[in-house]
């Protein structure tokens, strides 16, 4: 065994010496044999034979082929560059899309054994329940001891954090004492909460997330031990979470953590009820878990017939689970779609490279034949050609991943500032690199197999004959088929891109029901300053009265929720006259509490009745303004005024309709739904938005300063209405989809352009002789041009036909993601086809024109 390593080492690293030794031995042998025999011995051939059988000959051969491949690529720098660039574009697009899918779907949360972690979704009669309290968590823990090693809880809340005189919104979670222990994370700085499981921790302590610590406190290590004010209560900052840990969701950063016990006491607004988090014990199967949960849910429902009737418990794995509202994962479908589209781009790129390599292969037929005559086997030749493609693909892969990383950084920076700590970290990790590498290998196979196959099949006798027109028709047929596929794929990509752009345009231009220009939203949180309802009401009244007098403010009003904002609420509604629905849930309507002047500020038309006025105060009768859609659904025929309706969450207090306002769109994917407004004075909310229409030339910063002058303790975040519409709840997804699809489409078009040009130019070159004969026999240049173009357009035509079919198939699939445009939108199909046709024609014209100018004598002399 040992001797083998010794010889392998000698053969690989001291090759020269080993070769010299072998040569001397064989030389002596030849001399001795030739001295006594008639036939001569050729030591060179003998040497090759013995060397081929030596240890490590295979490795040595690969190394030699690799060096040779590198040399061949350097010898044709233009082709090499074109291939690498093509691969880079294809692989870049793929890794970019994959990095997004990776961040949204695949990347496990940065905790040990994330697969054991789950949320328990609590449904009551199939609808989301109200969340759980500490006692219920404790009960769950007792009941599920066999299943789970721990049960923790977390509830998200929007708070205000004031530190050294500046107040900001803090998205925080109230968590049980065992929260961090259950997740298995360790603090980057300081400590986490110390209370043992089951004890409700009321210590006024705050743990910061790493990202928030960096952005708000500049990563100051001295912040641990300092006191901050959260919703008017002094808390001690005790620690900072680990880097990359964003809490229970991957999509937004939970900026701070407070002990669960504080939630009950503070006058805070929780966004969601407490959610139980569990860590499954090892060896518990999903089926066993679900069965046991059924038993536990039934037991709990029996024990608490009032609160938990009809309870079912559903275990939802960590990651995206919190966001997707049951029934499939929309991210998965979209990510799959874009992965498929970018895969198509990569195939087009591979086809282009294959075309280039095939074209070069005909130029290299002689080289192959010579090598074959010198004793290189077919497999060796094929390997050689394939290695070249592999090198190209690896180079392209490296460049592509660099491109993709740049692109993903740009996309990560795209989402507009939304006041919400969104995490869009499409960074590259090992998985993305692995994917890029796999893609490089795949395209090497896709693009390299056919040329390698051809190289292996090169018949030395054929190629060594000095026939310059050689290469044969089958190669041209293969290249034509490639271009047909390219045209088809790129047309499909273009059409899909066009559909997304049309959808975006539609979403942008669709009337939203109000005038967003010059409207700014200043989101405020009175609870964030520690104010109770009385003090908060006072504050907001004062703010509104002052704001209307500030310079540059055209009009101002307050709203609990604004379109495309964060605090949107909804509730079931029914006309008072209609009996309560049984079985089916009541139809849902969006709602917002707004002050006097809201409709004027937003320029929402009042169609009937009146808006709110100072008389609609807490002492007056409860009134509402309903949207046109709601008026038409409940009281068709314009009889809404004076009618009363009931909210499911407050059935004892019907509201009387005093006005009907125009519809306002709150979700761009759907037509405006039912909506009603209540007077702000009759429904206090700690979080409100000061909606201001600014005069021309006035700045939002001046208003922000004025708000801070009034009361610096109330956290403010600012966003223009246009930003809100372009944001996450609005156009952002459409915008991103349209951008990606357009770029993929243009990339496909560029690749197809190169492909068409290449095949036409090659075809024309092959027919130079024929054209020379034709011209010599009196054909006019126009006829020659026509002959070449006919061939080109035939290929393009077939490709476009296939592309239309492919696009129709994809269009049907993406239809669900489009607004205001069908997946088979004729305009998009026609325009994209015309565009591609024009580009293909342009790409064919140049080589065809060149062929038409051929000098018959020169063409014939080529023989």
């Amino acid at each position, binding site marked *: 065994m*040992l*001797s*083998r390593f010794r*010889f*392998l080492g000698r053969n690989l690293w001291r090759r020269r010496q080993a070769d010299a*030794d*072998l040569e*001397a*031995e*064989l030389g*002596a*042998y030849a*001399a*001795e*044999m030739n001295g006594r025999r008639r036939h001569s*011995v050729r030591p060179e*051939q*003998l040497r090759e*034979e*013995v060397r081929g*059988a*030596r*240890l490590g000959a295979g490795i040595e051969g690969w190394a030699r082929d690799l060096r040779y491949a590198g040399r061949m690529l350097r010898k044709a720098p233009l082709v090499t560059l074109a291939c690498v660039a093509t691969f880079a574009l294809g692989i870049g697009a793929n890794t970019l899309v994959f990095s997004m899918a990776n961040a949204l779907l695949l990347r496990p949360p940065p905790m040990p054994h994330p697969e054991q972690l789950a949320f328990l979704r609590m449904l009551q009669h199939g609808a989301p329940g109200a969340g759980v309290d500490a006692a219920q968590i404790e009960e769950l823990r007792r009941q599920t001891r066999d299943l789970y090693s721990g049960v923790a809880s977390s509830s998200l809340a929007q708070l205000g954090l004031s530190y050294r005189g500046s107040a900001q919104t803090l998205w925080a979670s109230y968590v049980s004492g065992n929260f961090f222990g259950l997740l298995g994370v360790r603090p980057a700085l300081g400590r986490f909460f110390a209370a043992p499981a089951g004890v409700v921790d009321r210590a006024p302590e705050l743990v910061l997330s790493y990202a928030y610590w960096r952005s708000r406190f500049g990563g100051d290590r001295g912040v641990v031990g300092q006191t901050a004010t959260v919703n008017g209560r002094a808390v001690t900052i005790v620690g900072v979470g680990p880097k990359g840990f964003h809490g229970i969701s991957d999509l937004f950063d939970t900026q701070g953590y407070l002990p669960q016990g504080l939630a009950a006491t503070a006058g805070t607004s929780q966004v969601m009820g407490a959610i139980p988090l569990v860590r499954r014990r090892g060896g518990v199967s999903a089926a066993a878990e679900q069965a046991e949960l059924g038993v536990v849910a039934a037991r709990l429902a029996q024990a608490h017939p009032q609160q938990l009737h009809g309870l079912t418990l559903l275990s939802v794995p960590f990651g995206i689970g919190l966001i997707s509202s049951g029934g499939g994962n929309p991210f998965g479908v979209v990510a799959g779609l874009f992965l498929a589209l970018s895969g198509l781009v990569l195939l087009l790129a591979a086809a282009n490279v294959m075309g280039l390599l095939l074209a070069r292969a005909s130029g290299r037929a002689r080289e192959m034949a010579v090598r074959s005559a010198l004793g290189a086997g077919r497999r060796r030749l094929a390997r050689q050609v394939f290695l070249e493609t592999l090198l190209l693909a690896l180079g392209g892969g490296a460049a592509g991943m660099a491109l993709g990383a740049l692109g993903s950084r740009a996309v990560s920076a795209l989402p507009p500032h939304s006041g919400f700590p969104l995490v869009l970290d499409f960074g590259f990790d090992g998985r993305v690199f692995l994917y890029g590498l796999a893609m490089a290998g795949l395209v090497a196979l896709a693009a390299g197999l056919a040329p390698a196959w051809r190289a292996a099949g090169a018949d030395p006798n054929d190629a060594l004959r000095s026939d310059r027109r050689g290469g044969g028709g089958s190669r041209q047929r293969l290249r034509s088929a490639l271009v047909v596929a390219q045209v088809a794929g790129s047309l499909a990509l273009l059409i899909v891109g066009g559909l997304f752009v049309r959808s975006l345009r539609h979403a942008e231009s669709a009337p939203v029901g109000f005038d967003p220009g010059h409207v700014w939203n200043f989101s405020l949180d009175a609870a964030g300053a520690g104010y109770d309802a009385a003090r908060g009401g006072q504050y907001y009244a004062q703010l509104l009265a002052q704001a209307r007098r500030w310079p540059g403010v055209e009009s101002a009003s307050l709203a609990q929720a604004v379109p495309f904002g964060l605090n949107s609420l909804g509730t079931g509604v029914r006309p008072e006259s209609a009996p309560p629905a049984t079985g089916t849930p009541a139809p849902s309507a969006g709602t917002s509490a707004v002050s006097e002047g809201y409709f004027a500020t937003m320029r929402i038309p009042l169609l009937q009745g009146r808006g709110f006025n100072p008389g609609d105060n807490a002492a007056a009768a409860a009134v509402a303004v309903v949207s046109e859609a709601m008026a038409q659904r409940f009281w068709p025929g314009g009889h809404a005024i004076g009618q009363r309706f009931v909210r499911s969450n407050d059935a004892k207090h019907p509201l009387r309709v005093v006005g009907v306002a125009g519809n306002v769109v709150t979700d761009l994917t759907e037509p405006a739904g039912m909506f009603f407004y209540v007077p702000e004075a009759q429904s206090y909310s700690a979080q409100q938005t000061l909606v201001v229409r600014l005069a021309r030339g006035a700045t939002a910063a001046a208003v922000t300063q004025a708000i801070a002058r009034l009361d610096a303790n109330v956290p403010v975040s600012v966003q223009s209405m246009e930003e809100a519409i372009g944001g996450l709840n609005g156009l952002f997804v459409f915008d991103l989809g349209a951008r990606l699809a357009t770029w993929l489409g243009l990339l496909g078009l560029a690749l197809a352009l190169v492909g068409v040009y290449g095949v036409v130019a090659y075809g024309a070159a092959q027919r130079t002789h024929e054209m020379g004969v034709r011209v010599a026999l009196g054909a006019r240049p126009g006829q020659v041009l026509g002959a070449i173009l006919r061939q080109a357009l035939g290929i393009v035509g077939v490709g476009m036909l296939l592309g239309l079919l492919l696009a129709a198939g994809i269009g049907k699939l993406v239809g669900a993601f489009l607004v205001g445009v069908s997946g088979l939108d004729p305009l998009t199909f026609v325009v994209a086809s015309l565009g591609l046709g024009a580009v293909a024609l342009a790409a064919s014209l140049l080589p065809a024109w060149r062929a038409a100018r051929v000098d018959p004598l020169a063409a014939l002399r080529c023989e």
Partner: protein
Amino acid sequence: MAKTTELLPGTLDVLILKTLALEPLHGVGVADRLAQVTQGTFRVGPGSLFTALHRMEEKGWLSAAWGETREGRRAKFYQLTRAGRRRLEQETERWKTIALAVGRALELR
């Protein structure tokens, strides 16, 4: 000229080992001795011969050293190592078994 036969796969190694069991030989010597002991039944080409010699050297069955032939030429001489000798014994056993079995099988009526 005696009738020559293609070597059975695997036989060359054991034949070479056998020829080297008596004394160290160089390439020509091995070829001559092989032709001599098999009375010309097997003829080994130089390609196969040197390939086999080098392969067995790499396996550690032979060791090689430069020396001089009786005619005073410089040549590389091959010698059995201890591993080579063991190998020869094993191979000889194996060949005897096979030859016996094949012989019996062919003589069956």
